[in-house]
């Protein structure tokens, strides 16, 4: 368990530099003074099953070739290619692994021909939630997930990742009810327990096959909350506090041996970097193709990879969408890298932060300063539950200060929820109280034994 920070101040954190740089793939070194694009893409509307595997492979060949070509033309020094499984690609283990092999072969050919330094991240789909209540530890599905990790690693994956979902079944309901006991049960009890189970196994597989256990994302928790808040279904303050709380479950991957880069959609990345010093991946304005966010610039502030999250392979005027977004990422990275070369990175970082920080509570909570404060609170506690609660309380404090200092404007309705969260954090101070309070409302959703309880 991390009990100290990698960076003593948020000022020390920056983009393109990590305390522990990571060598991966074809000679790519992350966090060693440059920011690289992480390009992700997805299939257009089409069926995904073994019956049309040739067509699927053709789509991936086209997407990856186009992306690599544009990277080479723009003289991008390196990139991570992310292949994110659809559920079928993890379920039908051979299918996902075959696509991985094809992508890696293309990357190798560009490395040999143009010296293009790349690494392949494969993100396995957490299909354990297919069943209700989900079988997180037992049964065929979880075995298929691990088999998929192993086969994809054997077929050329450099970086193993997953957007895991342990506790999501409770978190979903708790979000809709804005229930703090429910959120604490999901994020402080269930999710970390599942992360320990899952990532200890992923780490073992990575060691066995000699690839890198990269990192996870709280996408299923905190991004779900952010999107619900954007649609005005739940309060923004709840979503922002959930973001801070969810960093604890994502950190568990690193406690179990992951070394980065964390996933692009893990906006909790700056907290992870502050604690671990490992490289992170982030996404912002260049991921507007995949989803709306308030984090367009600020997400770049301390990142090591800059991603577009996901884009469909559809034709735009200048080419297919994946290569178009590759170009956008390339120019963003070129800007950051030139700032690094000139020693002006703190100036650029400042403007990336200032331009977004007080425009929304979501941006406020992921600023380097706020992330560093949340990180400090996390390492000051000894259990996953206490860390989750403490992260949430500090997030409330950050929001409260910003309101008091007139740096952030929130509606009365939002402030009422902030008041409520602050009161309830005081009330639910230990895991036992939370279990006692929340279990009756949520026990229909999950099996205690599947979380080792």
């Amino acid at each position, binding site marked *: 368990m991390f009990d100290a920070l990698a960076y003593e101040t948020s000022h020390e954190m920056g983009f393109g530099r990590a305390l522990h740089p990571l060598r991966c793939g074809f000679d790519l070194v992350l966090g060693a003074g440059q920011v690289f694009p992480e390009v992700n893409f*997805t*299939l257009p509307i089409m069926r995904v099953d073994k019956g049309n595997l040739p067509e699927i492979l053709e789509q991936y060949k086209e997407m990856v070739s186009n992306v690599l070509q544009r990277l080479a033309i723009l003289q991008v020094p390196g990139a991570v290619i992310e292949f994110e499984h*659809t559920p079928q690609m993890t379920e039908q283990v051979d299918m996902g692994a075959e696509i991985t092999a094809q992508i890696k072969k293309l990357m190798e050919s560009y490395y040999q021909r143009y010296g293009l330094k790349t690494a392949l991240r494969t993100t396995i789909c957490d299909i354990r939630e297919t069943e209700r209540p989900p079988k997180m530890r037992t049964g065929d599905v979880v075995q298929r997930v691990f088999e998929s990790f192993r086969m994809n690693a054997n077929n050329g994956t450099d970086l193993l990742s997953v957007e895991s979902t342990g506790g999501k079944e409770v978190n979903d309901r708790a979000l809709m009810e804005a229930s703090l006991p429910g959120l604490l049960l999901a994020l402080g009890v269930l999710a970390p327990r599942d992360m320990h189970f899952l990532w200890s196994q992923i780490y073992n597989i990575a060691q066995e096959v000699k690839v890198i256990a990269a990192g996870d994302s709280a996408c299923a928790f905190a991004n779900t909350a952010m999107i619900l808040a954007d649609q005005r279904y739940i309060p923004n303050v709840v979503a922002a506090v959930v973001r801070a709380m969810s960093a604890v479950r994502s950190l568990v991957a690193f406690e179990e041996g992951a070394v980065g880069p964390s996933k692009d959609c893990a906006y909790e990345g700056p907290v992870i970097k502050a604690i671990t010093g490992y490289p992170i991946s982030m996404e912002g304005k260049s991921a507007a193709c995949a989803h709306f966010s308030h984090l367009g610039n600020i997400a770049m502030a301390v990142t090591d990879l800059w991603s577009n999250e996901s884009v469909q392979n559809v034709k735009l005027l200048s080419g297919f969408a994946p290569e178009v977004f590759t170009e956008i990422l390339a120019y963003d990275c070129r800007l950051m890298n030139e700032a690094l070369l000139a020693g002006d990175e703190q100036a650029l970082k400042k403007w990336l932060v200032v331009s977004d920080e007080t425009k929304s509570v979501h941006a406020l909570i992921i600023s380097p300063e706020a992330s560093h404060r949340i990180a400090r609170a996390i390492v000051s506690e000894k259990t996953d539950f206490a860390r989750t609660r403490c992260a949430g309380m500090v997030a409330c404090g950050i929001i409260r200060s910003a309101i008091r200092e007139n740096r952030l404007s929130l509606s009365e309705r939002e402030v009422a929820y902030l008041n409520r969260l602050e009161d309830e954090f005081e009330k639910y101070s230990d895991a036992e109280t939370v279990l006692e309070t929340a279990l009756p409302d949520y026990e229909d959703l999950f099996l205690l034994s599947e979380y080792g309880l």
Partner: protein
Amino acid sequence: MASYSELQQCVISGDKTRVKELTQAFLDNGKLPKEILDEGLIPGMAVVGKKFEACEFFIPEMLLSARALNAGLDLLKPLLEASDVKPIAKVLIGTVQGDIHDIGKNLVSAMLRGGGFEVIDAGVGVSPDQFVELAKETGVDIVGLSALLTTTMTAMKDTVQAFESDGSRNKIKIMIGGAPVTTKYAEEIGADGYARNASAAVEMAKKLIGAR
């Protein structure tokens, strides 16, 4: 004796206990179940719906109101069924085959229930045949299909076709939704409607029923 206005207010504020007490009191005083529903519970929930539309309520407040409404409905239901009073319509909803995302579907379910619909939730990864079977078993008026992935949208088309092949397509209305789904796609696959979010889904469901 309490007024229907008070009952409405208790639904709006999500006071489950008081809604139950008032509903029972009205029944004890000889009020007809349908009158309690039409004059107290439904108008209260209609205000909640309007407040939600006007961004004065979040989902958590709406859910509290829906629970309060249900506390009253639980008392009225057996009596309403005995007098053959039915919900606005029955909706079968599920995430299509190959897809495991369900928060959108759950939101739509909650909103539909709040809007007076009876909702049967088929879960996630529901195959076309399962949709057809469940629709038959439950006698629903509307089938709602949800998908988050471009690669699972095709299962929506398969589901519409499964109803066609079964010969039961004309007995139900089909509405679809999810991040990559569009009105155009709904038209292409022969669905009756598309809703871009949970609130719009309730409006679409009402429109589809009205159109029948």
